[in-house]
């Protein structure tokens, strides 16, 4: 059984490149300035784990954490 994942965007590091929103629109939201935060409490629904890792590995500011619970 795969572990449950959570994503988190560090708001001090995010600069609004919006790569996470493009790669994993289900997991991230953008504010009016285009800066990202995790959708809801960041819980990654089953089946979207790859997208979570993809978003993390494409963030130029290294602002995304994927936490394994």
């Amino acid at each position, binding site marked *: 059984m795969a572990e449950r994942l959570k994503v988190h965007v560090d708001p001090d590091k995010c*600069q609004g490149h919006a790569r996470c929103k*493009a790669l994993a629109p289900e997991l991230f939201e*953008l504010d009016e300035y*285009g800066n990202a935060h995790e959708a809801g409490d960041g819980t990654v629904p089953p089946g979207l784990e790859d997208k979570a890792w993809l978003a993390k590995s*494409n963030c130029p500011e290294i602002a995304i954490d994927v936490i394994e619970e």
Partner: protein
Amino acid sequence: MSDVDQPVAHPPVTDWVHDFDHTDPQWTEDPFPIWDQLRAASPVVHTKRFLGCYLPTTYEAVREIANDTEHFSSRRIIVRDVRPEITSRNAAPPITSDPPEHKPAKQLLLPPFTPDAMKKLEPRVRAICNELIDDFIAERRVDAAARYTKHIPVRAIAHMLGIPESDSDLFINWIHMILELGIKDESKLLQAVQEMTAYFGGHIEARKNNPTDDLISYLMNARDKNGNPLEDTHVLGSLRLLLIAGIDTTWSAIGASLWHLAKMPADRERLIAEPGLIPTAVEELLRAYSPVTMAREVVKETTVSGCPVKPGNMVLLSFPAANRDPKMFPDADKVVIDRRENRHAAFGLGIHRCVGSNLARMEMQVALEEWLKRIPDFRLDPAGTVTWSQGTVRGPRQLPFLLGKAM
């Protein structure tokens, strides 16, 4: 345009490590081996040219500088032979702003450029691309820079600003004067800034009585943190920034992408078969052929990746060289069209991340999609010459193609 006015030449470079020059014809033509050589020598190299200038050669050194606004100022962001006086007339907030002024100036510009805002603009950009293609698709020999890539960003930004798309040639000439000729001839820079100020001044005046639903009116209606309207000089500076930063940058990126696809039929065929891969390919093309090199001015002594840097010098902040660092990107010198992990820095790193990155990405995707849909077969014309722009923004300025299947 560049047939009339060529930049003044510098003495040729013989020792790249100690005397680099990003305006040297060899750099303009093929900078990649030069960056590899410099990176092998040191994470930071220096030249006495341009009144003293450093170049970070690794991704890590570029990131360090981009994130360090204490020692590196953005008050001058183009490396030139001269250091023009800093005034509110030539400032272009937020790109020329440092903290704490930077954040409020940046936040003013961000809402019109979110991905959602870009979705609304997308149909107009798609139409622009198709109008351009209609005009030359029946021809066999086409300069794709002069007929296609050059016109897409300028018309899109004109559309957003609410100024006539037919004034495009005027804007392109100002940009050439500021970003290319202005590196070595200050009078061209000042002339262009003056002409732009007069042009936008007229548009601002006209909107004082008749507000419109465009970016100029948006800026005129914006309020600072104290609830006051922006000074006219701030509005003018931001308009200048949007025009300069939004045009030959994306023009270069679209051009370099088509240039790559003209040479690589396998990549082209794959994108035609899998159009869903185009956004991923756009990121890789942005990495491999990043057009924009920014600059900083050293304002306090410090070290970068162990190398001392001293105030009074400029820094050529080469995001393009960072994006070719093999320590950061496996097969950095190859275009891997489906590269999955790509933290490229084409739009900068840190607080000065390009305001228009969502616009540029949308324009690149649409420009490639429409071109590939309608012109699946094209290649470089062996009878023509591809030429590249010099200095701050690198991209193809002549792109001679043969359209249609090879005979």
